[in-house]
């Protein structure tokens, strides 16, 4: 294993609703290494973005417990000044919707230039402009000199996402967090953006956390995958193991839900129910049990833990041993 860049230990991020705190991220531990892509997958509302925002310290009014060790330094409760030194410099973030992620009243050049300026105030304006144009070129924007002076509304979605990426990598961060970077883009642009990110990873030797619900993106990009459900990691493994030998009922259901173009006639698998909302998350027992009601209660653990079933492959709750799809025969 290479050097750990980010090590999260028992992270718990809770939000206040009325007078109680509810954990959106519950007991999450993971590591990200240099030059590695860790994908975090799960349905909407299972805490992926909440986790990413915790790592970047972007939550305003959340209670954060546990440790976020970034290059050996604990950031879990860093002050705003400490954060603003790290954010944008050592960590960059790529957002989901490029149409809203840029300030509509600032030209592209100033928006990217701001990231450089904030962490290096000694660079002259001219040098900064050259750097920004360099960055625009790096992310594959044609006519960077012209785009420099344009406003976001003058660019297409794909171009804007490239601008967002250029902003995130402006200071060569060691950790890049991408929160569903391709969700808002159409398929042809998606693959261009993914190729770009892969190339940047190689160039910068950075660790990437890729948040997505698109298993196709995971297969293409990730080195390791963490599957999240209801604020917890339910399975974590390297990408080959996860696709070849998924264990947790949720992972298997997710993989089974991917449309299969080989059997056009077969019905699409649907996971019953929805992710419970933050206030109504089951806090005891296996959180996924409500969505696989045909599995006997006794199969779940009372207090589900992650089990290492083979080196580097962890699965939460023992119910995976007894899981089968409803249409399958019980052995």
């Amino acid at each position, binding site marked *: 294993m290479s050097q750990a860049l980010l090590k999260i230990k028992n992270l718990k991020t809770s939000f206040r609703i009325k007078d109680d705190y509810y954990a959106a991220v519950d007991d999450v531990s993971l590591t990200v290494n240099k030059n590695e892509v860790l994908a975090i997958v799960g349905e909407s509302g299972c805490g992926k973005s909440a986790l990413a925002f915790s790592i*970047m310290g*972007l939550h305003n009014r959340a209670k954060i417990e546990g440790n976020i060790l970034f290059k050996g330094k604990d950031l879990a409760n860093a002050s*705003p*000044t400490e*954060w*603003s*030194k*790290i*954010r*944008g*410099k050592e960590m*960059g*973030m790529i*957002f*989901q*919707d490029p149409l*809203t*992620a*840029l*300030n*509509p*009243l*600032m030209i592209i050049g100033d*928006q990217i230039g*701001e*990231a450089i300026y*904030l*962490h290096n105030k000694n660079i002259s304006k001219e040098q900064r402009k050259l750097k920004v144009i360099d960055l625009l070129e790096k992310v594959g924007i044609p006519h960077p000199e012209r785009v420099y002076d344009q*406003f976001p*509304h003058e660019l297409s979605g794909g171009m804007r996402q490239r601008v*967002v990426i250029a*902003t*995130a990598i*402006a200071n060569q961060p060691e950790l890049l967090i991408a929160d569903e970077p391709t969700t808002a883009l159409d398929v042809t642009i998606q693959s261009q953006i993914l190729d770009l990110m892969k190339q940047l990873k190689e160039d910068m030797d950075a660790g990437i956390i890729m948040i997505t619900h698109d298993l196709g993106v995971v297969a293409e990009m990730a080195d390791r995958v963490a599957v999240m459900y209801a604020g917890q990691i339910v399975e974590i493994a390297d990408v080959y193991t996860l696709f070849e030998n998924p264990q947790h009922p949720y992972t298997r259901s997710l993989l089974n839900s991917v449309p299969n173009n080989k059997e056009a006639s077969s019905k699409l698998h649907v996971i019953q129910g929805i992710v419970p909302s933050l206030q109504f998350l089951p806090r005891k027992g296996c959180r996924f049990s409500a969505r696989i009601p045909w599995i006997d209660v006794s199969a779940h653990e009372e207090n589900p833990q992650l089990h290492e079933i083979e080196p580097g492959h962890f699965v939460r709750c023992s119910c995976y041993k007894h899981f089968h799809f409803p249409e399958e025969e019980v052995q």
Partner: protein
Amino acid sequence: MWKFTVRRILIMIPQIILLSVLIFIMAKMMPGDALSGLIDPNIDPETIAEQREKLGLNDPWHIQYANWVKDLFQGDLGMSFRYKMPVTELIGQRLANTVWLSLLTLVLIYAISIPLGLISGRYNDTWLDRVITGYTYIGFATPLFIFALVMLWFFGFTLGWFPTGGSVQPGVESGTFEYVMNRIYHMLLPALSMALITTVSTVQYLRNEIIDTKQKDFILTARAKGASESRIYNRHILRNSLLPIAAFFGYEITGLIGGTVFVESIFSYPGMGQLFLESIVQRDYSVATSLTLLFGIATILGALLSDIILSLVDPRIRIK
């Protein structure tokens, strides 16, 4: 930019024509005309009829309208029945007074609303925000003419800090620094009364804009770049939130016109608003119609100004 401005100004022409037709027809629909009531009842009705014919009062309305517009273009707004002087001369004296009062009020409105709106929006749902929103609700609920009276009574009469009427102290020589300060001193209380009430909508508006803008995605982007909170507010939120306020500017002017009508009367400030109310009470038709026309044109100009400002500050609608 110039193309846009010229086109925008051209649109105003039909607006102003429509406005003048409406005002003219409404004035004609009012009972009586320039001769009734003003003339000695002992005069022979035949002479009056002859005079009517001579003055063109029996012509069809469109010919009368055409004559009125022709006079307007020559700068002739008719005679005031009450003051026995040309309306242009009468308004001319007071126009400057009202313009200065409105300008001071505008400055005060923004001087109050921008800091209050900023604080209220940035620290929303704190006690500070509650105090400010409380003030805005009181402002919304208080009629301007009552508030102005209370201000006049308290600061003018009870405390005696401000003059209670007029636009300048008699005997101060015109053109000196003292004269200017004296004018401002006289305007301060009416302007403040008007500003304190009319600013509340802008405070509320700015507050909501800021709360709205600070939840936008690009604010997260700025934070992710490492921008400090104060930089985020000054660089990213403020400008985006002030855009709609700029668009509101024209309506602010319309509101001021309504405001000056009350405030000038209450503070006996010799401006157009006071004249307007007087002319209505005294059935001084030519003055009332001229002032309505002027107020209407001011409103249209206000809207023009808003559009031009907005097109200057918002790149999305800026026309190159």
